[in-house]
Each structure stands twice: as C-alpha cells, then as structure tokens.
C-alpha cells in the first residue's frame, strides 16, 4: 500500500514539534517515545503497520483546536483516532504525521429523555451510551459488532452500521448534532437537539467522512425506547437461493424485521464448533430472522413469517420461546468472526453490499474464485440490507498468501460493484479499498469529492492517503477549462 511520501523536514523537526505540542497538551498527553508509539501503529486492519511520528491525547476542545491550528500552520499531517477498531485502516498512522487520539473525551455530558437524545464526547464507547440510558428503558440503535470497544466518534467517522440497519438505520440516521474542529482550529457546532440543522446538511456530510474533513469533539445522538420484546426464528435451508427467496417474501409481505442474518455452510460449521449454539449442520444456509416491537405485533408477525418459511421450504425451523433461547440463536452469529479465526490461522474480512437478489449469483462466483485462489471463504450476510461479509481464510506465514487473499478480496468487491452494489457497506474505504475507488467512481466523481474535502482542508493535512487513490492539489482541482460558447440547443423547445 503506497502512502504519501513522508515529509523529511517534518520528521527531522520531531523534538521541536513535541515541545510545541507539550505547550498545548501538557505532561503525558504527548507521546514521543518510539516504544510507546507502537500501541498506535495499526488499527483493526492489522496487515498494515506504521508508527506515527507523535501521538497527542488532548482533553478539551480548546486543546484540539490549538493542536490543529499548530499543525495547520506548520504543515504537519494529522490522523484522528478513536478506539482504533477500524477494519479498513482508517486510523493507520503516517510516519510524518501525528495521531490525534480522542480517548480522553470519555464523558457523557447530558442525557435528555424528554427529547430522546444524549450529548456525549467522542471517546465514549457505542455500548457505553446504551449502558448509560438502559435503566430508563432507552438505547442507542446502531450496534456495530465492535460496540464494546468502538467509540461514537469513530462511528461518526465511519457511519457505522450493525445488524439492525434495515429497520433502525445507520449512524447517520441516528445523529442530531456535532461539535467539530476544522484543520485551521475553527470550532463549529452543527444541529442540536432539534430534528434538523439549518443550511446544508453538514452533519450528514461529516458522517462517514473517515476523518478527512474535521475532528469531532462532541456528538448528540438520538435515543430510542427499547422494543417491548424481541423473538427470533432460526431457519435452515438446502440452498442460499431458498433462503434468499424467504427474505424477499418477508419483505413482500410488508414486514421489516429488526434483523435478518444469513450464514453459509462454512460459517455455520465454524460457529457451531466454537459456541455450540445448536445450529443444524446439514444445511447450506442458515437464516436468523428477528422481529422486535410491541408484544402483540411480534407474536402476530411471528406466525406470518413462520408460515412463509414453511412455504419456502425451510428444512429446519426453531422459534425462540425465551430470551435465553433467542440469545443462543445469536451466539453463533455474533461469534462467527472469532469462530472462523479458529479454523484458519488468519482471515481477511470483506465488506461489500449487493442488491439482495444477487446473493446466489455472488456466492456462486465466489466459490469459483475460491477455487481459483485455492483459499477458503466463509460468508456471513446482513440479509436485510444486502451487506456481505466474506471471510477469506489464509495463512500469513505462508509466502504470498496475504497478497493472494487481498487479490481475492479485491475481486469480490469488484463483483459487488458489477452486480449493482458498492465497495463498502460499513467498514469504510480507508487504505484498504482506496485503490478500488475507480471501479465504482469516475475520475470526475472522485475529483468532485476531493473538491468537497478542499472546502474543509485545503492543504490535505487531515488523514491524507485514505479514501482517495490519487491526491490532487486543491488549486489544480479548482481550475475549470472552459470555452465560451453559443446558446445551447438551438433546437430545444423554449417557452
């Protein structure tokens, strides 16, 4: 992975930069020791490692603002970081850049049940928000599988999803306001506790911008009342087509389940071996359908879904009769990644989204690729929203296998785009999918996106080397090549 050339003058000025940063963030908040910096050398995408020049851990918005202003003035690159759980290398450091860690922003500032929202600092964990409000029966809806560790600031940067997106939306659908700092130190507040912010939807633009536009220092999230109840069906099918047909028929019946998760045979076996959830082993596809909401509704819809499952030829069917049983259904799915980790020395987790009805085709093509590369693959699939997580099995100790796994992964993602889907559903582009962006976007599209970045960060100091395969200077992007012309379309009707 090619990163921007390190700026040797910045690297040679390390001592001086550390001193200046310590004037802003005193004591332990500035880390310069090479051993200590190792902690930050990679995120959840561990294939890439690069210790940062310096790590800075500010404690206040004012410190963030002063640090950024200093870096802007001195032309020093900045990589923001939450808990470092990104699976796409979004928080991968740069040799000539500082890591700006927001971990000390870990306080919940205000919980407002009447307006169903909470104001929190970006370093609060996703699950930490729910923990703080669940006594009153509320929760924060997006639930990425790293929710114990990942921070809400990182969720905003990546527009994180989870298993309940079809019904409850992604991060972007569950935010009301932000405080953020631009690279020049300007502190901005967007939105608040009211339902939509005035002017352009900068809140929506910031969400999922992967730390390239600004540093989030405060987040106002929507809270939802916990559903009265939730019940799940565990269904086995002899083909992924049959499972896919059931998913389509549930939606055609007007039902939007809280969660619909599918696993293929290798994933089922790995999960069952690991947690003994009681999954059937002689099926090709396993589907968990979860209905949540008022008790009367869940019981009623459960019957409909159960009848549909029979009609679509489910070969095994279990309905959760207790909360315990429901959790057991989920245990295997939630442990699918570590379970796959047990059957293979290493695995590479992909994250494309496809139109749901393309699943059988995509799985078939993936089996062919699996043979071509001689690498195994297990699949878990957010069947409700089309988000596919193929886990490519490889052994990093074998010469060339990582590269082979990466090529396999890139082929899968190109396939997702080819069938009408996208490169990434929830993990982000980061460095991982950066060079695949031209498979989905034209050069003009990518240049326009970079022009938007120029409006926030004209010197490309915030998280450079991520998302965009080619860095253009803002001045170059701003140019327009125009030839003055005649009135267009003399033949077009005017009136």
């Amino acid at each position, binding site marked *: 992975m090619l990163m921007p050339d390190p700026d040797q003058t910045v690297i040679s000025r390390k001592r001086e930069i550390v001193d200046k940063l310590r004037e802003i963030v005193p004591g332990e908040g500035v880390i310069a020791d090479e051993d200590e910096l190792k902690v930050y050398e990679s995120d959840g995408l561990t294939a890439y490692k690069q210790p940062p020049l310096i790590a800075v851990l500010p404690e206040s918005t004012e410190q963030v603002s002063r640090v950024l202003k200093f870096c802007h003035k001195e032309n020093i690159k900045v990589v923001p970081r939450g808990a470092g759980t990104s699976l796409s290398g979004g928080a991968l450091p740069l040799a000539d850049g500082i890591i700006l860690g927001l971990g000390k922003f870990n306080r919940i500032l205000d919980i407002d049940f009447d307006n*169903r929202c909470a104001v929190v600092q970006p370093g609060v964990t996703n699950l930490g928000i729910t923990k703080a409000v669940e006594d009153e029966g509320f929760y924060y809806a997006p639930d990425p599988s790293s929710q114990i560790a990942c921070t809400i600031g990182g969720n905003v940067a990546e527009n994180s999803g989870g298993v309940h997106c079809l019904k409850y939306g992604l991060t972007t659908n569950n935010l009301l306001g932000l405080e953020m700092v631009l690279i020049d130190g300007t502190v901005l507040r967007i939105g*608040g506790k009211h339902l*939509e912010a005035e002017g352009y939807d900068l809140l929506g633009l910031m969400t999922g911008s992967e730390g390239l536009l600004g540093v989030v220092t405060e987040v106002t999230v929507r809270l939802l009342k916990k559903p009265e109840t939730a019940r799940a069906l565990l269904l086995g099918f002899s083909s992924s087509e049959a499972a896919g047909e059931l998913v389509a028929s549930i939606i055609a019946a007007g039902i939007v389940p809280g969660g619909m998760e599918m696993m293929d045979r290798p994933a089922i076996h790995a999960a069952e071996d690991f947690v003994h959830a009681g999954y059937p082993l002689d099926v090709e596809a396993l589907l968990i359908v979860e209905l949540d909401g*008022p008790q009367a509704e869940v019981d009623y819809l459960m019957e409909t879904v159960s009848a549909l499952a029979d009609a679509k030829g489910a070969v095994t069917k279990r309905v959760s009769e207790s909360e315990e049983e429901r959790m057991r259904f989920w245990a295997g799915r939630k442990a699918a990644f570590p379970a796959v980790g047990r059957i293979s020395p290493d695995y590479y987790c992909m994250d494309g989204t496809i139109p749901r009805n393309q699943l059988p085709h995509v799985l078939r093509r993936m089996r062919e690729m699996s043979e071509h590369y001689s690498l195994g693959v297990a699949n878990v699939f957010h069947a409700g929203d089309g988000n596919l997580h193929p886990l490519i099995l490889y052994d990093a100790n074998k010469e060339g296998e990582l590269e082979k796994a990466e090529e396999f992964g890139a082929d899968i993602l190109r396939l997702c785009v080819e069938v009408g889907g*996208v490169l990434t559903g929830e993990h982000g582009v980061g460095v991982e999918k950066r060079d695949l962006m031209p498979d989905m*976007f034209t050069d003009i599209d990518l240049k326009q996106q970079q022009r938007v970045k120029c409006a926030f960060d004209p010197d490309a100091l915030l998280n450079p080397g991520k998302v965009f395969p080619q860095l253009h200077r803002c001045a170059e992007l701003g140019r327009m090549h125009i030839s003055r*012309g005649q009135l267009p379309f003399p033949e077009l009707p005017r009136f």
Partner: protein
Amino acid sequence: MGDRYKPETIEQVAEIVTWAAAEKVPVEVVGRGSKAALGRPAQTEYSLELSGLTGITLYEPDELVLSARAGTSMAEIEAALDEHDQYLAFEPADYDALLNGRPKDEAAASGSLAGVISCNLAGPRRIKSGAARDHFLGLKGVTGRGEIIQAGGRVVKNVTGYDLMKLHAGAYGTLSALTDITVKVLPAPEKTRSVLLFGLEDAAAVAAMTQAMGSSHEVSAAAHLPSGIAKDFDSSFFPNDARSVTAIRVEGPGPSVSHRCAALRSELGGQTDSDELHSHNSTPLWRYIRDVVPFVSDVSAEAGDGNAVWRVSVPPARGADYVAALKLKLGEATEALRYYFDWSGGLIWVSLPEGEDAQQHAVRESMADFGGHATLIKATAELRGRIPVFQPLDLGIAALSSRVKHSFDPHGIMNPGRMYAGV
C-alpha cells in the same frame, strides 16, 4: 425574463450548465415549479426545468428501492408505490396549496421527486422515520461546473465515498442539477389509528406527546392543534365545543395497532377525554397537518393574503416553551398569532400578519434558550427578498457552506442566493 430550457437527457443538462458556467450566467434550477415560491426569490434570467426528465427507471419492491429521473411527478411515484402497498416513509409534505393557493381537496401529490428531495421536505412521520435525506440512496446530476457526477448507489448500507446525497438533500438546487434519484422505499403499514386527546393546553399537550414518544408503543406521529385550528378541521370526530385536539398516531398490523392504541389511551387518557380515529379517518387528519392546510388560503404566496407562515424547528419537548416565549415577545401582536405543533412539539407552524417583517425577530429569538431555527415558508417575494428566509448561520458555518457551494459551483450559477446571499 430570458429562456427556459427543458432538457430531456443528462447530456443536455450538462451542455446547458457548461454554457451557463462559461458565460457566468445564473440559472434557476426548477423541478415542476410547485415550490417556486419557497426560498429567496430567484433573480435569474434563465431557467433550467427538470420536468422533461421523467419516468421511473427502476422499481424493485422486494429490494425496497426505487430510481426515477429527477422531474418525475410525485403523483406518479406515489401511484407506483401504492400498487405494491409501499411508500416513502418520510411522508413527503406537499406545500402546493399553501404556496400557490390551489384548492385543498386535490388528492394527487404535486411537484417532482427532485423538488421533494432538494427541499428535504418531510411530514409528521419525520419524528420516527427521518426526513427525505434519510431515504436518499443515490444520485446522478450535473454540478455547477457542468460535470456529470454520481454518488451513492441503490443499497441502504453504503459508506463508499462522501455522502453527497445528504449534502444535496435540502440544498435547494444550489450545488447541482439532479437528474436521477434513488430512494429507499418501505412497506406501507397495514393499519393506522390515531388516539385523540381533547382540551389540553399547549404545555400539557407537549407533555402528553413526550410521554407517548418515550413509550415503547412506536408512535409514528404526534401533533397538537390548539382550539382555533382544531375547529377548522371539518371532522365529526372532533368535539364541537372548540376544544383543542392532540393526536397521536400508531401504525402497523391490525392486532398490534389496536393493542397499542388501547395502551396509549389508558396511559395518557386519564387526564382528559379521548377518542380514536381508524385508518379511513386518520389519513385526512394527518394530511391536513402535513400540508399546513390550516394556513392555506385561496391566495398564492406571490399575491399575498396578508399572512406569513413560519416553520419553526426546536427540541420537541420545548415546543410549548417556544410558543410561550413567542407570545411574550409579541405582546399585543399575539392576537393575530395562529400556530400548531407537529413532530411531538419539535415543529411549530406559525402564522402571523406579514406586516413590516413578519415579526422575524420575535420568531427567531424565542428559541434562544434551547436552539433551533425558523424558515419563512410563505410570504410575498418582496418580503422573502428583504429578510432572511432561512435562519442566519453562524459565521464559521456560513463560511464553510459557501466554500462547499464553491466546490460544486465556482461561478455561483446554480440557484444563486436561493438559500443565503452568496450561496
């Protein structure tokens, strides 16, 4: 006035915008023109009408996705969705009657899909299901540079590249001329019922709505009509003694809806009289609320009926506090004030005599304690040209917004000044 262009392909749109950019002539970008009177008045010689770009290009009900060309009428979109018992969950509002003084009993939706998206118009269900921006999955369009761009896709879970859909929703055509739009659609609920509470004062009504929204009964809308407004809604289900009406809507499968209505009535109804509206009678009530029918007259905004209409957004639980503060500021002028609440108190529709400045200071300063914003939705062009239509922005946000505008439209030719001077 100069020419009006009505292109039929994206390439024609690009050619027109390229020409306009080269000549640096501002262009008014319109869909079907139903919201021409919304926003700051256009001062452009040329207009680019997207109504020649029509037709649904993809609709897969099982995949919950629909794509259409930008100028496709909302009537066509809604008819197609109806056939499959689906809908746009954000409940797009239709201000045609409010803005243009057309008869209020016309059932078919007005305007274009691009218009609804570009103005980010959402109805009562916004409190539960989000706004247009939350259902906008993909776009194609032509930037103010004359370049054809695409963003997003046709799937709900997508974080590939910046979310330019959000940026275009509510941008009033100031960045690009949209040519193709993809939206998420959802199954329409089988049944709708509304619990009605009678005679509550504003504060008690907002408290009741807050309680309902904080319950696990999945309330999909909550509105409060003070007595004068409630009286105007012609319903035999409303009391004829001019009491206020607070309406709380639940939607879903039959057994669930009746169960939740009963629960809501027992939890909230203790304080006052209550009743229930079934699907057939619920629909006109929520359309009345959604389309601001209480403030519709048979005179268009352009001609002016003497009243101005504001759309005020505040934290929902502070709705009644806002109105109390507004009354205090208005003093004697309160007499002419008419208002009602949607979004569980978070959206307040305010009607005041247009007068000198439609009381902009009172309207905008009454939310100082808790934040929010006010938009002048209906007023004469003269007034919309003279006072800010949209809430004035903080200086930092204003500067950033104008840089974002510039990144799409360096010559400022796309609907310039429609939202803010210089944007």
